[in-house]
């Protein structure tokens, strides 16, 4: 069930360093929201607060609220492990488990959730690989190592692994930055299909990509080194790319800055 994300007054810290300041935004369900902005402005940091992965970094903490529908992800008693089971993540570099087969990679999340039945596993693995547009390429070698695939295939394998557990939200941190143009297109097509089922947030440094895949775009920037990143504006992608309401956004997307 795709869910909405709401943040209000969110500050994100690494120890004493405030990396992101005062972010209030809404991510709509069943749509793609792109985070753009110059490097170092805190896009990844913010994204990782949505599944509480930010805390795995020593000193990582937040102040403010992140709501998944109406549930506060940082409320007392919320188990970060449980949050991560419902908010999936795809990383910048494809990271399939190197010692696991393709099948086991996709099944790994299900097994964590206690799924044991062979038929259910088989079905879900196939379905996830189909949704990740990878099934036809790997169906004859499901028991081979996932690390033997090409970079683009590995990234789609990671997407299959993430969606196998039917997450409510799918977070993608520059999922195409390590891929060639053809693989990038394949992933973009996939994102377009996936948004019918999931809430997707994608970080990208590629403006064309944001324009192609996203429904809404959030633009962040940073006042200078050592300063926290801030949200400048968020809105409809087509609107933002044709008529940005902030000067900083216009400068960035027309390439005059960043």
């Amino acid at each position, binding site marked *: 069930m795709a869910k909405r994300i709401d943040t209000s007054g969110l500050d994100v810290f690494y120890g004493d360093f405030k990396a992101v300041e005062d972010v209030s935004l809404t991510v709509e369900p069943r749509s793609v929201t792109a985070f753009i902005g110059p490097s170092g402005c805190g896009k990844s940091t913010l994204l990782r607060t949505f599944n509480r*992965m930010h805390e*795995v970094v020593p000193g990582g903490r937040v102040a403010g609220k992140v709501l998944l529908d109406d549930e506060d992800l940082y409320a007392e008693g919320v188990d970060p492990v449980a949050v*991560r089971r419902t908010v999936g993540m795809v*990383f910048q570099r494809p990271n*399939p*488990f*190197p*010692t696991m087969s393709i099948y086991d990679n996709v099944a*790994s999340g299900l097994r964590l959730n206690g799924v044991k039945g062979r038929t259910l596993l088989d079905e879900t693995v196939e379905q996830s690989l189909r949704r990740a547009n990878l099934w036809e390429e790997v169906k004859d070698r499901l028991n081979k190592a996932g690390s033997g695939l090409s970079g683009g295939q590995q990234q789609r394998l990671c997407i299959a692994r993430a969606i196998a557990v039917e997450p409510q939200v799918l977070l993608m941190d520059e999922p195409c930055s390590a891929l060639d143009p053809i693989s990038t297109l394949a992933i973009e097509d996939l994102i377009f299909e996936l948004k019918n089922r999931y809430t997707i947030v994608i970080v990208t440094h590629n403006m064309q990509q944001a324009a192609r895949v996203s429904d809404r775009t959030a633009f962040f920037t940073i006042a200078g080194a050592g300063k926290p990143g801030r949200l400048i504006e968020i809105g409809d992608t087509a609107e933002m790319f044709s008529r940005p309401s902030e000067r900083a956004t216009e400068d960035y997307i027309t390439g005059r800055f960043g």
Partner: protein
Amino acid sequence: MRGAGLAVVLLVALVGIFLTWKAVPSLLHNKAPFLTSRVWSPDTNPPRFGIAALLWTTVISSIVAMLLAVPVAVGVALFITQYAPKRLATPVAYVVDLLAAVPSIIFGLWGIAVLGPVLAAPNSGLRQGIENSLGWIPLFSSTGVSAGNVFLASIVLAIMILPIVTALSREVFLQVPRANIEAAQALGATKWETIRMAVLPFGRPGVISASMLGLGRALGETIAVTIILSTPNIGAPFDPSLWAGGETFASKIANAAGEFDTPQKTGAYISAGLVLFVVTFAVNAVARVVISRRKEV
């Protein structure tokens, strides 16, 4: 680097050749099957000696030591690298490393003076517990307990190889790529699940080779084993139980070192040493192969 490596290979080869050269005359005169016989009378005429009992005690004491040490070492290494906060991890790692600096004679003394009496006491709870749970394995069944039994030697050996196995395991666990760990965490893996999905699979070849290196060390350990193991009486029937005494290659040679009076007798002991050399070399070679295979992928 290359030159030094070559020199070492040459040195090892020379040692091997020297041992073989000294051993061959005795082996030619030997009237017992060298590899399968358990008799050891190298100074009769003709000499009769075989290494079966030595090989058994050496290998079994070392394997049991490895089986005892590896789970503890992996546990400690996981604790240090995955669980403990830094201010606890550093001292624990330090203490384990410190164990490696204790001379083996001290471990031997501790084994014989402290642990031995506990294990061999007629009402030893530890021993009875082991016998009750594992007695169905012939190795653990006993007809009597020797004060210097093989199991005692194994425990002491386990403690002695613990630092190296822990240190090497710790090293590989630290090398697990962040990406693998984050992949598991992002799926909602708990700490332990992350260890099982990302840390242990990545570390496995390293742990295996660390265990082999530990095994190699246990096989050749001399002084602690020599002072711990009770030497069976001459002519006593061979008892393969872990509760019996026995002799390893190293302890046999060390015990006899004062009486190498004839080349024939010396040659017999050198033949035994040669077998130890080959076994240890093979175990270490396997460990190296496992390590280098992992580096390739």
